[in-house]
């Protein structure tokens, strides 16, 4: 479903952020992306949601080469991806509920269909009771749950999480991680960048490790089945 093939990435005014990275993540899989700061984890995620494009090599999401997507197709791709960041990226002047609804409004969803979906995902992340709270009235862990709810509300193919527990204390970290595991158990693939090795050790999931832009370890390095290219559409 996500396939990197010989990907190099050089930022305009930087050195190589990724060097010859290849891997494949299947539908429903859970994978950690680890590595030291600056190893290129965020870059991998940015290449997947087409915020950046490979300097050379191929990035395919759901069969589509990101480099070939038109500016109209990129939003469509993003609607099929759930994205979560360390800093939550919630809108401060909107309630939890409105933040989640925002992801649906942006797609032009019908008003009537929005509210039930929003309540369903808020319940799924355990925040139904705080739907009317503003971000500043929520703890870090709760804010991240809102962000996860927003990422889930469009039924994504994969949840991309960039250090989702980076700003959280241990308890909140465990809670959010458990939530991600539950989401994966329900069928959504999860790709989680983290340098929290305790977390990585806790779970029996695949680990992809980057070092200075190079892929140095992949516990599931069988290259993956070659069957998904072109299967399923981005929209």
């Amino acid at each position: 479903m996500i396939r990197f093939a010989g990907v190099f990435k050089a930022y305009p005014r930087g050195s190589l952020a990724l060097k010859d990275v290849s891997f494949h993540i299947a539908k429903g899989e859970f994978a950690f992306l680890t590595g030291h700061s600056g190893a290129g984890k965020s870059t991998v995620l940015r290449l997947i949601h087409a915020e950046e494009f490979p300097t050379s090599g191929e990035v395919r999401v759901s069969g589509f080469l990101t480099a070939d997507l038109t500016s109209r197709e990129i939003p469509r791709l993003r609607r099929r991806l759930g994205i979560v960041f360390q800093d939550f990226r919630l809108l401060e002047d909107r309630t939890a509920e409105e933040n989640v609804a925002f992801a649906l409004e942006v797609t032009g969803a019908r008003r009537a269909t929005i509210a039930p979906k929003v309540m369903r995902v808020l319940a799924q992340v355990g925040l139904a009771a705080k739907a009317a709270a503003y971000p500043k009235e929520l703890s870090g862990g709760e804010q991240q749950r809102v962000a996860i709810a927003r990422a889930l509300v469009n039924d994504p193919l994969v949840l991309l999480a960039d250090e989702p527990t980076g700003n959280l204390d241990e308890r909140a970290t465990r809670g959010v991680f458990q939530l991600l595991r539950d989401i994966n158990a329900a069928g959504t693939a999860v790709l989680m960048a983290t340098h929290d090795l305790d977390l990585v050790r806790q779970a029996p999931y695949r680990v992809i490790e980057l070092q200075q832009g190079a892929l140095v370890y992949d516990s599931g390095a069988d290259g993956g089945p070659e069957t998904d290219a072109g299967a399923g559409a981005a929209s």
Partner: protein
Amino acid sequence: MNLALREALLAFRRMPLLSVLSVTTIAFALFVVGLFGLVAINLRGALAALEERVEIIVYLRRGTPVETATLAITDIETFHEVATATYVSEDEALSRARRELAEFQGVFADLRANPLPASIEVRLKPGFRSAEHVNAVAERLRGFRFAEDIRYGREWIEKLDRLRDVAALVGLTVGAAFAIASVIIIGTTIRMGVLHRGREIAIMRLVGATDGFVRRPFLLEGALKGALGGAAAVGLNHAAFFTVDRLLFDAAFFDPAWVAFIVLFGTALGLLASAASVRRHLGSPTS
């Protein structure tokens, strides 16, 4: 749609001062243009009354037979600008002069021969009474061999025409200056909005908003400000009209179509300003 409208309205609350300034400049731009428009409209009323009386008089050479004149009249009446053409004989001219110039009764009585020439009086149809048409018709009348002299109120028609042109020109120039200022101010407001909402825009894109969707609230904001400015301009113009109408003379105001046009023009101006600004500052989808 709803989201875009809500965002556009929020923008007013976020930057009230700049928003008010945008609306005010558009309002002033259109107010000034409108003011000159009103002058033009009312001047046109006055002109129409004067132009009612526009006539061209062709003085005939002495000895021109009546038949020739009558034939010419049927010819002249086929000109598409011409409403009527009437023959005034030498005798008629004299008796008219006697009637109208009663003080000179004695002078006329002493005349041995009638000094007044016969003439053809040509009146033009409404819509063909401007200097341009009068000149054109006069030029054609000059072509008749029996025409000795042609008289018409050319000077003052041209002056009034010019006055109207100047009013329109001044209005458009001042209005254009204000319009440019308002485009710049609206553009700046939108730009500040875009910068202010950079985080929000990034999040919108993250969750899959299209470029059009990101731009829509800004375009709507500009259009809304333009429409408000246009409406305010109509209000100001009406106040001006009302004052003049009350204190000075019976004046005319824009008809509903023109009012709608002014508001629409303001809307277009606001839309244009925001579109230009958004294009510059929201650039590519991944920036």
